[in-house]
């Protein structure tokens, strides 16, 4: 997708006018968020577990080189191949070359935010490959040529009627109204593709350094199909997804599904260790793991923002964010939306400047930090990003007018006389500007400010006492 992270204002206004989307967002609030909260209330020692998860993620990041090398060694030992991709183009090229050299025709894909991030589908389709997203939500948005609007529920913005219509137009489906029927139709259509696919592409929720395992969570079964039936399995993941051992995985595994959907465990969790062993009846003959940087090492180098890389993509911060729950995912203008999108997009996107308004798409209410399973201090990072954009030439200086206004306000607010004169003048001028101030967040000011009331009272008191 073409990134447009600078259009939050216009896209979010559009979102507010879409009643279906607003209904869907209410659904997220009332269901996903409520289920997450309930799951954590039931989990004994939830706070300690979050703290443990934070420690594990920080530790893995502090020794990222060590763990990636260990991971590579172990994946290789298991018969898999590890590839390194320093940017999106390099990752696309790797997959492309694999597809060509192995004579691939049909590719089935499991939901992967990283693959959205690098724009893999367009590339593979341009090569003439038959590429199909198999997660029901991803399949829907692929057919509609849209971007995911939620990390966990990519097609959450579409109604059943819109989906049924899409299936009719693109797939020749009969008229359907029941989600059961729509899902069954998708199952049958996609099953045929699975059975003839040569290559399965997935992301990875975690990769375990000590055992070379790729860990995948899902509820539908499409990821299992993508990794069980085709002869090739390619997993693409960000370099930050590595965890040291099973022990560490056991902590994160308890937190991810609970944070994402309120489930104790997703329906299917696959721990995949290399390609099919001799004699095993199914599973891929070849396993490839692509480790993607694409800006992540820049975040790692930035001590103020490094903790952004702890993120395990659960989506809990989206589901609890008052702004996301009104604006929806598309307003954020790229693959990662919600609070974590406002954190990641400015740091990952090529043209940083274009994302300068995203750190303002938050009230800094702190709800996200309360639910984050790895305790990322999202409000702190967003405030820090605002400062980078305002002050750091490497991030592009803020518009001159804005800078001037802040400087002026600072001057007024530090000088009592200036402040009081400004107050008086503003009260006098208000009748002139009032009609134009429709967007002003406040009601009109009081007739007399506190300071003048107090000094007036003090005078009266003094007078009364006859001093």
């Amino acid at each position, binding site marked *: 997708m073409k990134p447009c992270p600078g259009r*939050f*204002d216009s896209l*979010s*206004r559009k979102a*507010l006018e879409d009643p279906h989307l607003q209904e869907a967002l209410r659904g997220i609030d009332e269901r996903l968020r409520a289920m997450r909260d309930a799951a954590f209330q039931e989990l004994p020692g939830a706070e300690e577990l979050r703290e443990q998860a934070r420690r594990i993620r920080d530790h893995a990041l502090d020794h990222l080189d060590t763990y990636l090398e260990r991971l590579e060694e172990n994946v290789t030992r298991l018969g898999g191949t590890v590839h390194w991709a320093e940017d999106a183009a390099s990752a696309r090229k790797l997959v492309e070359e694999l597809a060509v050299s192995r004579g691939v025709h049909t590719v089935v894909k499991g939901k992967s935010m990283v693959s959205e991030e690098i724009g893999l589908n367009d590339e593979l389709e341009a090569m003439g490959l038959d590429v199909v997203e198999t997660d029901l939500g991803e399949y829907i948005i692929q057919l509609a040529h849209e971007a995911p609007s939620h990390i966990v529920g990519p097609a959450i913005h579409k109604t059943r009627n819109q989906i049924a219509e899409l299936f009719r137009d693109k797939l020749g489906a009969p008229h359907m109204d029941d989600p059961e029927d729509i899902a069954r139709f998708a199952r049958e259509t996609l099953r045929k593709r699975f059975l003839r696919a040569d290559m399965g592409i997935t992301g990875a929720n975690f990769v375990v350094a000590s055992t070379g395992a790729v860990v995948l969570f899902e509820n539908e079964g499409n990821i299992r199909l993508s990794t069980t039936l085709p002869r090739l399995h390619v997993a693409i993941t960000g370099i930050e997804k590595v965890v040291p051992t099973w022990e560490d995985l056991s902590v994160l595994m308890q937190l991810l599904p609970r944070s994402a959907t309120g489930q104790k465990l997703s329906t299917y969790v696959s721990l995949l260790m290399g390609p099919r062993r001799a004699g095993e009846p199914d599973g891929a003959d070849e396993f490839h793991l692509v480790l993607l940087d694409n800006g992540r090492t820049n975040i790692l180098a930035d001590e103020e923002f490094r903790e952004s890389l702890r993120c395990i993509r659960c989506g809990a911060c989206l589901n609890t964010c*008052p*702004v996301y729950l*009104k*604006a929806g995912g598309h307003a954020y203008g790229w693959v990662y939306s919600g609070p974590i999108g406002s954190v990641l997009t400015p740091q990952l996107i090529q043209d940083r400047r274009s994302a300068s*308004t995203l750190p*303002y*798409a*938050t*009230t*800094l*209410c*702190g*709800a996200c930090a*309360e639910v984050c399973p790895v305790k990322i201090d999202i409000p702190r990072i967003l*405030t*820090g*990003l*605002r*400062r*980078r*954009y*305002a*002050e750091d030439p490497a991030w592009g200086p803020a518009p001159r007018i804005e800078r001037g206004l*802040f*400087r002026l*306000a*600072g001057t007024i*607010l*530090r000088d*009592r006389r200036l*402040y009081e004169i400004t*107050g008086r003048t503003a009260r006098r001028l208000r009748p002139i500007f009032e009609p134009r101030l429709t*967007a*002003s*967040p*406040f*009601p009109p*000011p*009081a007739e*007399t*400010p*506190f*300071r003048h*009331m*107090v*000094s007036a009272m003090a005078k009266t008191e003094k007078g009364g006492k006859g001093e």
Partner: protein
Amino acid sequence: MRVHLFIPCLVDQFRPQAGLGAQRILRSLGIRVDYTPEQICCGQPFYKSGRIKEARMLARKTLQNYRDGRPVVSPSGSCVLMIRRHYEELFPNEPHLLRRSRHLAARIYEFSEFLVRVLGVTDLGASFNGKVTLHDSCQVRRGLGVFQEPRALLSRVTDLDFREMARSDECCGFGGIFSAKYPRIAEAIARDKIENALAAGASIVTGCEISCLLHLERQARRMGAPIRTLHLTEILDGG
């Protein structure tokens, strides 16, 4: 006891009654209240917009105004949080100011927090006739951990009909510069809040943070909803 009453710019300009209420209540408890008109803004809007230079300048001025070591009490939770939590971030390389920041952080209190936690007072002998609900501002509840205190104070007000609303701890949508940049979203969030207050049968929304209350007041007017907002001090002072 003698304290400073910090009346930040929004209270000063938009809701001076909240300041007067705070002043009267403190005095009625036998506390000597100092107010300095030199003190205007704690620097929060600048800090949150990444304008660290201006934030430092205003923080320096605040530290100067309150350098005498007396407790500072303010009816504005977000300013208290700014000073308590963020001032020290502003002066990492200035040990003198860092020390003063920490010292001030340890003796600045949000109004209801000061009454309940420091003075141990909940019953002010106040009375207020009305159906009241409380909005837990994010900076107050999540930031300062203050949410029982205003409820404890309200529970002792004669004739007051307290109505807890759904999601009282959800953001009102103000968010400072956020509502200036994205006013439509800010409005939409505030709308939910007003609807929750109406559903609770309240006609007054109160709280410990004036910016949220002003934002909600404006939204209630926009919707034509029979809701007005009063700062906690205004209610405790008798409305």
